[in-house]
């Protein structure tokens, strides 16, 4: 059942990226180009919709002793503010701003976005792999 839930959640997530057009980097860059004179606020509406649903889901999760299909609910959010968090977010923001792709939309575009998406994903996985090794080493 956990695998079925994971598949369903992945499908719904991907559908959400298509419906909202967040799968399209040009749409995302239109949001990030705040001072370009033709600002595209679509991404803000996407965030409002997603955060609103999750703002309801978190209190429900906290009221349950365990997830429906076993395991544990995530622990309380860490409050550690350090240079890794801020530096990592800044590096991520730089890469996001250069192309307009973040991990979700990049992966969702794998079969429908052409070779540019493949190049981006290969580079992203390499970056993740290298950092995983540095972190664990």
């Amino acid at each position: 059942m956990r695998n079925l839930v994971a598949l369903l959640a992945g499908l719904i997530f991907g559908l959400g990226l298509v419906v909202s057009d967040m799968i399209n980097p040009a749409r995302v860059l239109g949001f990030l180009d705040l001072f370009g004179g033709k600002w595209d606020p679509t991404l803000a509406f996407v965030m409002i919709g997603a955060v609103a649903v999750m703002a309801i889901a978190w209190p429900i999760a906290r009221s349950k002793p365990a997830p429906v299909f076993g395991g544990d609910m995530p622990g309380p959010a860490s409050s550690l503010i350090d240079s890794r968090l801020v530096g990592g977010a800044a590096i991520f923001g730089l890469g996001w701003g250069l192309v307009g792709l973040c991990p979700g939309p990049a992966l969702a575009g794998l079969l429908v976005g052409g070779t540019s998406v493949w190049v981006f994903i290969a580079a992203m996985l390499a970056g993740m792999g290298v950092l995983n090794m540095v972190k664990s080493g």
Partner: protein
Amino acid sequence: MNFDLTNALFGLTGGILIGLSAALLLLANGRIAGISGITGSLVALKLPAAWSENLIFLVGLIAAPAIYALMASPPAIIITSSLPLLVAGGVLVGIGSRLGSGCTSGHGVCGMSRLSKRSILATLTFMAVAILTVTISRLLIVN
């Protein structure tokens, strides 16, 4: 790109779908729908216990737009970045999202919705840097 009320409504609807996906994963499996965390866990020497669930989630994420393209019109994906820019952007997104422990979904959607100070700070940081990056790029290209 053009923006009108339709884009706002589709944006909101798509956002609600993303929220429902994250809520399903949380309430049913106890997992946080952070795409960089899920993906990053699969490019490590030591795979996590839930690696198969993570892989299956990604299969769904990758398959959905292709299934949508078969049933409706394929989504437009406009990428104008050059090859070096794609590589640089990909590497930076990969390193940054792992170093900062999250991306737009993990920090932006899942973290901010539970008012995590870490996630709010991370989201403000990557939003500000991305806006700055786009602004500087445009000025460099235009001028």
